[in-house]
């Protein structure tokens, strides 16, 4: 209750006519931002406690999971940018069904988004436009936004599981065979590939995944004296 009171108190300050219209001095505006942000951040404790309570007996127990709020207002989110698997917990505050486009800032790659029932849902990766001219821009590593449409129930909470499916996609079977010629043992290569890049376990899967001719895989460095 006391953290909610802090937010109520901050909202009281924001009723001042200068705060409403934006006619306050610049340093006062910054103070208002500070007050509101601290109050909103603190009141998220309530949401976190609720989610953790729900998740207590599931694999998403609090020891493994932390619910961080990302506002996405400048295409920046430390968690989704740094992690290859993350969960989006989305709360719909209105009392009817909502279809809301969700934009998540991520690094370039291939991503899959799963709805709460485990089904893969349609998503799209779009690049974040470069800043106009050379003006200072957001502080974020995100280069793309992952977009999907979340279908949310009235006042409901839904979780979406997102995973990056590969680090390097631009390789072909021919490149692997070429590398095999160099090293003689494709099994070692597969092990390396499996451990480091993609979840592929046999050549059939490989064929299904990478059918087109693309940019060659960078070949590991070898002794320059050896004439290949």
């Amino acid at each position, binding site marked *: 209750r006391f953290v909610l009171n802090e937010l109520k108190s901050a909202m009281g300050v924001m009723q001042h006519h200068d705060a409403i219209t934006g006619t306050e001095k610049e340093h006062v505006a910054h103070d208002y931002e500070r007050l509101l942000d601290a109050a909103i951040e603190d009141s998220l404790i309530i949401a976190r406690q609720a989610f953790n309570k729900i998740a207590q007996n599931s694999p998403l127990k609090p020891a493994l999971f932390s619910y961080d709020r990302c506002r996405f207002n400048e295409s920046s989110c430390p968690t989704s940018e740094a992690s290859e698997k993350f969960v989006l917990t989305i709360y719909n505050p209105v009392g009817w069904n909502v279809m809301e486009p969700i934009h998540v800032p991520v690094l370039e790659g291939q991503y899959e988004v799963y709805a709460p029932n485990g089904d893969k849902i349609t998503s799209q990766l779009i690049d974040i436009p470069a800043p106009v001219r050379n003006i200072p821009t957001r502080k974020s590593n995100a280069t793309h936004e992952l977009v999907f449409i979340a279908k949310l129930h009235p006042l409901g909470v839904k979780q979406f599981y997102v*995973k990056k499916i590969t680090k390097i996609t631009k390789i072909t079977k021919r490149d692997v065979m070429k590398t095999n010629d160099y090293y003689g043992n494709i099994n070692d290569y597969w092990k390396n590939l499996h451990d480091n890049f993609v979840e592929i376990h046999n050549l059939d899967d490989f064929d299904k995944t990478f059918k087109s001719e693309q940019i060659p895989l960078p070949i590991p460095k070898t002794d320059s004296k050896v004439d290949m």
Partner: protein
Amino acid sequence: NKDINIDILKDRTDNIYVGDLEKIMKEVRTENRRERKAEKISYPSLNEEEMRMLADESMVVERSYEDYLENEYMKIRVDNTGVTHMILPDRTTNLKVQMYYWTGCYGNNTDTTFRSSGAYIFRPQTTQPYPMTYRITGTIKGPVLQEFRAEAKENAASVLRVYNGLNYFVHDFVVGPIPVEDKVGKEYVVRYETNVVNNGEFYTDSNGRQMLKRKLNERPQWNLTLEEPVAGNYYPVTNKISIEDNNTRISILTDRSEGGTSLEEGDLELMLHRRLLHDDAFGVGEALNETAGGVGLVMRGTHKLLNLDPRNQQEVEEKKLLLQTHLKPIVFVSDAENVDYETW
């Protein structure tokens, strides 16, 4: 765009759009580029970067460029000049999304006629705003959304977006920092220009209380003579502004409170960002010139454009969308490196 000395641009009454930029590029290419670059006197308003932009063939837009953003509800036609039409199953509306800027007055504040435009007072110097010149930067089409991107050299960028399954059109914009090197304060607005015959009438939600009808240069209670023909027609828009005629209602849903009006027939205008260099002497004691990061504020926002038939009684749907624009879903992100899909 004020001083470019090319015949095609001499007619100042025309706005300069991407199509004109293309003509400039063509001229630049046909001449010896090096000579042309050295001849800066011919292009006094272009800096090095803009000269490079004009000479860069990769930025040339094809003359016949025409594309559509579409979903199951609408088709948006775009060409060299940007968006031109919104095509719905039963009707087509002309639509242009154009950013402008007003320049702020500078006075000594001794009298209302010498008042500066400032934090409290919106007082533009001219009765017509200056249009921004757009450059198309790309179109994206995919299974979730289709979007059209453009940017202006005045530090404004627009993304116009259509999502599959959603019946509204989204304008996502990043504006600023507003350049003030010329020592002139500016106020950036966006206009949605349509062919709706609204007879000077438009509707704004009066600080969230109710939709009120506004009429250009009129007040319902008294005879009005406006000393400020532009600012006198601006009204607060908390979430929604709309115009309508017999078969079309265009509504813009904003993501925050803004100033809005309809100064021209069929237009909706919303103010996005302001940067002014003089105090208006109404008490704040400083100019509205916020310099976060040393360069001025950048703002990012979203407008949703709804095109409905007023005869279809879709008010409830519109109000729901309005509320859910204000009360957006709250997203929490959790690192799941230790939780694989099967466990989840």
